[in-house]
């Protein structure tokens, strides 16, 4: 089982990202679980959502305390101490940021992969929401699920122009990030 924690701010589509990622796992015949940790929901407030992907039925319903991967929708969240708490050794951190991976790694003292998700989404979809871009990058880095599964899951929630543009965003992001960079990590952080 792979456990993932998504950190964002209210309004950035955090819960949708969690549901779509779990939905993509379902499209591949896997078991999945996604749920938000709701706080005081308002735009801009930090929010967290959790995703579990497994070959077997998932029984635990507690929050993800030791994620294998962190998806960070907004670089400013890295200043909240709890955001990186519990990340597994060799776990990966993917951050929506205009900085380079090297810059982020140096600044926060641990390896991170940067993705200009908001910028790409603004250009391709017309809205600076990084959630779908982060999912595409995450799946490309880990090879956990094919991007086709992500597209299928997305097409169950959206349609028309919004869907078309997001599908294009998935492809463009997928072509840009290093495919398989986290393949070993994905195996290493898997738990029974």
């Amino acid at each position, binding site marked *: 089982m792979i456990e993932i924690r998504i950190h964002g701010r209210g309004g950035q589509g955090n819960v949708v990202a969690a*549901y779509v990622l*779990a939905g993509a796992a*379902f499209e591949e015949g896997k078991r*999945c679980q996604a*749920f*938000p940790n709701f706080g005081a929901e308002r735009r801009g407030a930090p929010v967290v959502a959790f995703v579990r992907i497994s070959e077997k039925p998932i*029984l635990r319903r*507690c*929050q993800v305390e030791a994620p294998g991967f962190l998806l960070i929708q907004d670089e400013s969240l890295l200043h909240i101490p709890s955001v990186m708490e519990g990340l597994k050794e060799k776990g990966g951190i993917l951050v929506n940021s205009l900085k380079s991976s090297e810059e982020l790694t140096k600044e926060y003292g641990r390896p991170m992969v940067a993705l200009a998700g908001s910028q790409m989404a603004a250009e391709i979809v017309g809205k600076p929401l990084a959630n779908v871009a982060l999912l595409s990058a995450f799946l490309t880095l880990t090879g956990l699920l094919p991007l086709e599964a992500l597209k299928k899951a997305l097409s169950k929630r959206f349609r028309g122009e919004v869907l078309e543009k997001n599908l294009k965003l998935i492809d463009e992001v997928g072509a840009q990030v290093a495919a398989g960079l986290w393949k070993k990590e994905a195996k290493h952080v898997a738990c029974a």
Partner: protein
Amino acid sequence: MLHALEGSQAIAQAVALCRPAVVAAYPITPQTHIVENISKLVADGKLKCEFVSVESEFSAASVVLGSAATGARSYTASSSQGILLMAEVLFDIAGMRLPMVLTCANRAISAPINIWNDHQDAMTVRDSGWIQLYCADNQEAIDTTIQAFRISERTELPVMVCVDGFVLTHTLEVVDMPNAEQVDSYLPPFTFKNKLDPKHPLSLGTLVGPEYYTEARYSLHRALEKALPEIESADADWAKICGRASGGLLTVDGPESASVGVLAMGSVVSTLTEANEILPGKKRVRLMKLRAFRPFPAEALRQACAGLKELIVLERAFSPGCGGILGTEVRAALAGMAKPPAVRNFAVGLGGRDIPLGTLSKLLDAAKAQGNEGFSILDVEPERLPPEDR
């Protein structure tokens, strides 16, 4: 057919499959998505039913009281303060023996205000005369919702389906959604012999004096007791159609040789099941999932406890100044056993406090320190309170 669905959406679809004639509801977190999804199904023409948007939970309960009394299959849902605002009407619905189904998206009670999950809302109306069934996952929430209509209409008692707020309602997971043919073959159209009908005038909820009130209340008590086999057969018959059961009155999991048992209700059972599987063999417990809280299955519970030295009751609410609610009831029920297990009682996860996998080990350790008649809150940190409040 398998789907990856949010719990609320799955429950809404299950309700729609039961073809309710009237749905009345007022939104409250974490119930909102359920009724929002039902209202969308109605607006999209996928569910033909009267959806009544009301101005309070008191009205929501009143509307379904009225609609059920006319023989219409009726449904509502609420949480927390909403259940409390409904309380007066909930007692009326049960007292008038009106069949209907209510989903309680379980949430803590104010004050202090808290929108997260525990069982204090449903526990607070435990004496209302409603059947209460608790679900461990969203598959059980779907299947129990469908079963609830059958149980309700056969017993002429209202049924509250309790699903943990957020933990189930806001969790997307893989569920098998039954099809209309399956549900139609299981749940016949609702025919209510005591319905209000101008051709055959009838009064409901009239004044009853001391000369007959006791008998009226006794009959409600007996109706609930007689509902026990109906709950079991509703589950068994549904299992014949869809191939899975939701746990009848209660289920037992774990090694038969275990001398320690743990009993709980709702989604925490799911986490405890995994925690039990990863414990070393000798430490594994007899894990009991209590699905029917009302009527209380005392006899089934005594049978499930046979041979246990210790039973730990883990609950998600308590009665201030007394202690555990479920724990107190379990102690009373087991007192009739020849060799009853020592009962330990803990509350956990109040107001949405996370219940991690390690809870089971912590519980087993804490139980050793608790006296037989004790009650403790497993995850309380009294040192965070000023000394005078501890």
